């Protein structure tokens, strides 16, 4: 990130809250700085962790699915349960029909990609949910935006857009109001919320933990015995928030995948809605 002039030392006394910029590590390989282009090139921790997540997920599932025994071992059972969860609880239940299996790889990849990257935020030293960086959240939401619009067009042709924005059974004189709302809600708000929901929850969780950490550090460093004592309360609160964040990390991965499945289903059966 381009280091903005932070109000780092504005006051002599008092606590300076960490900003979003502070949650971004400086690039490991700042190889683009010299060019000064508007998007910040350079290879950062977040990218490394995205790559790490791909390696981890791929390795785990390749190992778990390799044997394919009828009576599974521990590893295979775990992999099968994880796969079966996305396949049946999300794919089959939401999309249904005979061809839900076609979309299971999308949902499966999305779920574990998001899940592992979120959980990185709860692992000490890694401690960075990859999707707290908006670029990643936009990317994965864009993938599904294009996917479901593509499915709709492939399934219904250009009539898909009419099906998607003109609800059936609405009197013609209300249509001028309903159609713009539907267009905005389906094709603009939906992908934006899809990405921002994930990004914002991850960033907020990450910020809270960072904030609590720096607050404790500050309180301890003041030398004031009362503030130092109070820092224990902050620590307790931080641990509670950490637990909550861990829950939200899993939940958001599920929500993201669930919504993706719902959007795909909506595009597949646009004529039935």
């Amino acid at each position: 990130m381009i280091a903005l002039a932070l109000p780092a030392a504005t006051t002599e006394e008092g606590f300076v809250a960490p900003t979003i910029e502070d949650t971004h590590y400086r690039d490991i390989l700042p190889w683009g700085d010299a060019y000064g282009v508007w998007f910040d090139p350079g290879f950062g921790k977040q990218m490394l962790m995205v790559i790490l997540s791909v390696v981890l997920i791929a390795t785990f599932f390749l190992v778990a699915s390799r044997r394919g025994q009828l009576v599974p071992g521990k590893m295979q059972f775990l992999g099968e349960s994880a796969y079966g969860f996305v396949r049946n609880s999300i794919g089959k239940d939401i999309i249904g029909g005979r061809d839900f299996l076609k979309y299971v790889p999308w949902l499966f990849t999305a779920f574990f990609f998001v899940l592992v990257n979120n959980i990185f935020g709860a692992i000490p030293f890694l401690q960075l949910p990859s999707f707290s960086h908006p670029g990643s959240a936009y990317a994965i939401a864009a993938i599904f935006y294009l996917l479901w619009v593509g499915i709709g067009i492939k399934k219904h042709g250009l009539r898909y857009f009419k099906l998607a924005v003109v609800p059936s059974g609405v009197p013609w004189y209300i249509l001028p109001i309903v159609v713009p709302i539907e267009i905005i809600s389906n094709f603009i708000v939906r992908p934006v919320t899809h990405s921002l929901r994930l990004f914002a929850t991850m960033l907020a969780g990450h910020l809270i933990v960072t904030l609590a950490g720096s607050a404790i550090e500050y309180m301890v460093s003041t030398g004031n015995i009362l503030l130092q004592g109070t820092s224990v309360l902050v620590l307790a609160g931080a641990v509670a928030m950490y637990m909550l964040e861990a829950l939200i990390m899993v939940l958001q991965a599920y929500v993201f995948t669930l919504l993706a499945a719902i959007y795909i289903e909506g595009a597949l059966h646009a004529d039935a809605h």
Partner: protein
Amino acid sequence: MLNAAIMAAEEGSSPLAPNWWEFLVTLVGFAVLMFIVIKFVMPAFEKTFAERTAAIEGGIAKAEAAQAEANAALNEYKQQLVDARTEANRIREEARAEGAQILADLKEKAAAESARISEQAHVQIEAERQAAVVSLRAEVGTLATDLASRIVGESLADDARSSRVVDRFLADLETSSSAGAAK
């Protein structure tokens, strides 16, 4: 997203401004992961699921087949048992009837045999009696003649006369004996 990008370009530090390298890395990461999932992970899991389903359904079908076979065998055995019982009853009845038949035959044969034996005995006795009578008649004549001639003291050599006398005597004797037998 476009808005965010523009904002990023203008302000440089909006929290919504994406780092496009991160965007790219995420896209590529997702694509790579997706490729691995489609190419290796999903086929392997689906194959295992299908095999497991087949194994379970095959097991159930096999068990059903075995059950049906066992039922068929049981019915067959029951049928055979009923058949065997019927057969045994039939044979017993037949044997009883046959036994009765044989008994009746034997009785009849024995009766016939005893009748035959007694008949034969009668005939033989009759024949012997006749023979005895004939031989007696001959001997008695001679003996009587001898005796009479000794008593009378004269020769009854005149055969014609003596034999007439003897015959008349014997006829009288027979008449009296048959009258005694009839009595």
